[in-house]
């Protein structure tokens, strides 16, 4: 593996379609009107530009998230929390057997700088990678402006609970109109009656109304914090643009509507289960799987994470079982 120690982004002049090409270690990235092409010393790969940008948007915005962000079955990243692996075919049994897989490790800030530049350069004015397909324009064509406001959205991360003092605040019509698929979600507020002097500790808000106003999809955002226990609800529509490979157990609580999860072996991609979640359903996702969700209608999903930084090592070394409970 190569460890790049500088933060220089290696980008070309615009190609015939107006897009810069990028080199990161021995990886090369190029896009044209419809597709993104990735090359490495032992192979190459092609992805639809819209799917690539949706995946890269999550990887950048989540700072490489927990564990593995598979852009698809071939290309992706592994977060080591300080460094990041960029891989091709590493978690694909066929590529491994053919010895076409390739992994390079980078300082997080280096790979992030390149990804941010790529995302900014390759996202046209008409396209919002965080929006559902019905709520954004085309990702395709020659370079046509940019959408920096969309691709540099601030990640919502409450420190205690949404609506608390000096914390994330409620969403309003002025900034977050109710989504078309959640027009029927009640917008009432809880009755909150603090005694004088206790205004900072007597707090409540309407989480479902808050979620109904989310302008993005498949983007878990922290709304409440109990030490390392994080509630990260998100609104889901169409397909999760990444296949998330776990480095710890995570949990899903279906708050509304329905999501279907395709669950595969994290390391080989072999199919393991299909999990259908309806309102009130709770399921754990073991530490050695990867999953991709399908939401026919915009749905509210509570992703529950344990942010304890020691967990990846404990699971990777087998000191913890990959599933949360024995019974």
């Amino acid at each position, binding site marked *: 593996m190569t460890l790049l120690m500088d933060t220089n982004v290696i980008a070309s002049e615009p190609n015939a379609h107006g897009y810069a090409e990028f080199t990161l270690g021995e990886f090369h990235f190029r896009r044209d009107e419809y597709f993104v092409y990735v090359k490495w010393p032992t192979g190459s790969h092609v992805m639809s530009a819209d799917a690539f940008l949706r995946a890269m948007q999550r990887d950048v915005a989540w700072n490489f998230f927990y564990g593995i962000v598979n852009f698809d079955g071939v290309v992706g990243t592994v977060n080591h929390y300080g460094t990041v692996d960029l891989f091709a075919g590493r978690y694909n049994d066929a590529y491994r057997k053919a010895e076409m897989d390739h992994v390079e490790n980078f300082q997080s800030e280096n790979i992030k700088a390149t990804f941010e530049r790529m995302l900014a350069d390759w996202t046209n004015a008409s396209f919002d990678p965080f929006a559902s397909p019905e709520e954004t324009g085309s990702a395709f064509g020659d370079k046509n402006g940019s959408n920096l406001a969309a691709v540099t959205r601030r990640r919502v991360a409450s420190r*205690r609970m949404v609506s608390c003092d000096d914390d994330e605040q409620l969403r309003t019509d002025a900034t977050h109109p109710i989504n078309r698929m959640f027009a029927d979600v009640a917008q009432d507020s809880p009755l909150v009656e603090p005694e004088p002097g206790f205004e900072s500790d007597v707090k409540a808000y309407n989480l479902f109304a808050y979620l109904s106003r989310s302008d993005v999809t498949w983007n878990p955002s922290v709304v409440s914090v109990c030490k390392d226990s994080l509630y990260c609800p998100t609104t889901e529509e169409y397909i999760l643009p990444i296949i998330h490979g776990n480095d710890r157990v995570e949990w899903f609580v279906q708050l509304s509507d329905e999501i279907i999860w395709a669950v595969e072996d994290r390391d080989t991609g072999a199919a393991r289960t299909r999990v259908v979640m309806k*309102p009130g359903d709770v399921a754990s996702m073991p530490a050695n799987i990867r999953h991709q969700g399908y939401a026919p209608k915009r749905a509210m999903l509570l992703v529950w994470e344990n942010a304890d930084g020691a967990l990846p090592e404990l699971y990777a070394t087998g000191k913890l079982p990959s599933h949360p409970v024995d019974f």
Partner: protein
Amino acid sequence: MTTYVTRFGSLNQYEKGGVEIIDDDPKRYTFSNIFDVAAHSRPYEKVAVGKNRQYVLEAIRAEGDSDWRRTAHDEFALVMDGEVEVVLHRLSPDEEPPEGTQGSIQLGHEPAGPRMGRVVARRGHMTLLPAHAAYRFRAEKPAVVLLQTIEGADTLYRWGEICQTH
């Protein structure tokens, strides 16, 4: 043009999904349903539906008055169905949980500290149960609360009863 209907569950109307096995054990997915658990619980039993190391999600059937409980760390109560009143008092120094206590424990009497206030929460409303406070739930009709907390002495584990096993 499609008219969208957002589907939530309730004690009286819920439909469980499930784990369709291809090559795995369903018990690894700890699949349950909050409303199903609450429908089969006694009032204010704290039944774990999620566990991630020491952290738990507890499904609570709120019905009538709960005991007064006390906590040394923040907890969060999300009402999934019905209406729940939460009354809060600041703990007096001698009411603080013993050092190292996780989750909430019974107070055993009316709180001696000053009243902090109250919240009336309905479906979708999240209430902060602040550290160093005593709280009591009240629900005129059966309601369901999902509690974000840490496992404590009163957390109940019924995985074999509530989870899909085959």
